[in-house]
């Protein structure tokens, strides 16, 4: 068995062919910066951030609907923190709040139940945004709403599934050599799905954890496979990810939601990539995303190319100039999980 020091040395001194690895999950991107992983790799190993930040891929028309609700009498929008700064076609929720809009930040969707029960005269709209990691909790939220017979709380979903997005990239973007698969999402969906992807697209799919050492190990495995002309799924986060994933969570998701085409900010419609409340639960739906959603890409914004891994954030002409975390033009600059925001805050200019 090789020590971490040996692995680090080999990765730093790697002089084989150039390798582009896409890390799909924003938490990986964040950890890569926090641990200074790029500085530990040979320039021939490139890490590219993918579309794994739910905030970054949410359509601006969805934000507009939230803004509108927040400004309506007797209405309150409940959201996670990072949605506050994403621009709709005109306003962010932070700006709507400054104009008198009623917006509250929650850390757990189940906090919405408490808020709704405590304020029966207010109509609450919960901004349910996320990938498979958070979707089971939204399912639980619906279950609680039904159980407690709550009439003043609905959810507005923008829910995405990651596999259609990765497939889209495999089909449309030929330059990505391998994928560092999302750890948290994989806990829910399991590792076996990536085995099919690996043989279909002939690329390594490696599931990694989030500590610096986990990421180094996953990158090393990818480099090993590519150097040996191998392509397979390797689960290097076995402490949390099983082959079939969390069956209970998956059952809960598909009890309330069904797959549908959905709109990705910066990409457009990806077939079957969204989850929508089933028809029998439409009373709880306050206007979820659909393929009808639209997005206004500001002039010059290269979010699309960033999300698809075509360019690094620094290659966007607006990066660090017109677009900064304090005045974000594109959604990728907003979230703590967004590639541009992470690059900017970590001075990769």
């Amino acid at each position: 068995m090789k020590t971490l020091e040996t692995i680090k040395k080999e990765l730093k001194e790697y002089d084989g062919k150039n390798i582009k690895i896409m890390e799909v999950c924003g938490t990986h991107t964040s950890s890569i910066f926090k641990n200074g992983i790029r500085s530990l790799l040979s320039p021939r190993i490139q890490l590219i951030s993918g579309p794994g930040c739910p905030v970054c891929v949410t359509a601006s028309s969805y934000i507009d609907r939230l803004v509108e609700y927040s400004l309506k009498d007797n209405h309150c929008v409940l959201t996670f923190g990072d949605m506050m700064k994403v621009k709709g076609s005109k306003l962010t929720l932070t700006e709507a709040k400054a104009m008198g809009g009623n917006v509250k930040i929650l850390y757990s969707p189940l906090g919405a139940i408490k808020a709704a029960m405590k304020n029966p005269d207010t109509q609450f709209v919960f901004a349910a945004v996320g990938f498979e990691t958070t979707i089971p909790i939204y399912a639980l939220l619906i279950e609680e709403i039904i159980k407690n017979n709550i009439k003043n709380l609905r959810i507005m979903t923008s829910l995405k599934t990651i596999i259609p997005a990765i497939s889209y990239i495999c089909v449309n973007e030929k330059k990505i050599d391998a994928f560092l698969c999302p750890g948290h999402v994989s806990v829910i969906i399991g590792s076996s799905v990536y085995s099919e992807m690996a043989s279909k697209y002939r690329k390594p799919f490696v599931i990694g954890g989030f500590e610096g050492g986990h990421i180094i190990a996953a990158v090393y495995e990818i480099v090993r496979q590519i150097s040996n002309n191998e392509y397979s799924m390797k689960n290097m986060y076995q402490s949390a990810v099983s082959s079939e994933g969390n069956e209970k969570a998956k059952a809960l998701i598909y009890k309330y939601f069904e797959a549908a085409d959905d709109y990705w900010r910066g990409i457009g419609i990806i077939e079957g990539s969204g989850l929508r409340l089933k028809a029998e639960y439409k009373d709880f739906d306050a206007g979820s995303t659909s393929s009808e959603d639209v997005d206004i890409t500001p002039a010059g914004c290269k979010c699309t190319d960033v999300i698809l891994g075509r360019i690094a954030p620094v290659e966007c002409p607006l990066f660090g100039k017109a677009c900064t975390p304090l005045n974000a033009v594109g959604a990728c600059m907003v979230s703590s999980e967004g590639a541009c925001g992470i690059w900017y805050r970590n001075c990769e200019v």
Partner: protein
Amino acid sequence: MKINMSHGSGGKQTGDLINQIFLKHFDNHILNKLEDAAVLDIKGKIAYTTDSFVVTPLFFSGGDIGKLAVCGTVNDICMMGAIPKYLTAGFIIEEGAEIETIDKIALSMKLAAEEAGVKIVAGDTKVIEGRGGIYINTSGIGEIAKSGISISNCQKGDAIILSGSLGDHHAAIMSERMEIENNIKSDCAPLVSIVKSLIESNIEVHCMRDVTRGGLATVLNEISSASSCGVEIYEAFLPISDEVRGLCNILGLDPLYMANEGKMIAVVPESQAETALHAVRRSKYGENAQIIGRIVDGSGVTMITTLQGSRILDVLYGEGLPRIC
């Protein structure tokens, strides 16, 4: 009983509020005279500062707005190498606030002032319309005990000492606001004894800064910019409690950018680094101090990570909001 507009009228109710709460707790011969202004006996150069406190909730694990209002101003004075002597306190109270709450806050200010060795010698109360909020402004004066301490005074090779763990105040407030149960307490505390200990140990302190809003990364960037130097710190030496680290991982926050209310850094000559570290460690609130890095050539702030990678630390942008996943 609740505060109403008449408590701010300047008449009988205002007088009662002052007598029954502020004079009772802040009791000292300068304030008790109730003159229009306090007359103070001060020697030599003074450090003089002001700060306003608007924290919600008013009470949190490890402190409250009153303790914060005293410690915040006291610590700013200390960072200039001064020993704090006198504070003023201005209260802006929204109608509907409970008088009992104000009493508790004033008591907390009294205790914090006693610990810091300062007297609250002047004050003001205003009542405004609202929903029971309470806001406090304090200003303070201290006598300079060691001059020449400045953010622009850091020299290449200097050691950077951090007085204790990062992120506790921010984490405690977040936990309170988000109703997350844990044992994290705000670190809100006066830093007088650490500063006195450094001065009494004859340390040639070049710069001191309390690590408040914006967190350590922001403060180090301010130093880098004002002293035209680079800063290098080591992740492995940063004291962060397991509970704060855990909360940060869940919420997507970074302890390097989180506010503290009882932590400081001291930048000292390398030759005195160990002596200074011991001086801080034997002081109250300095037990967990560490030498976390040094001043280097160049510009900006770099952190050597535990994996030996390098990470550039910029200032905090916007508000640190909990992330989605």
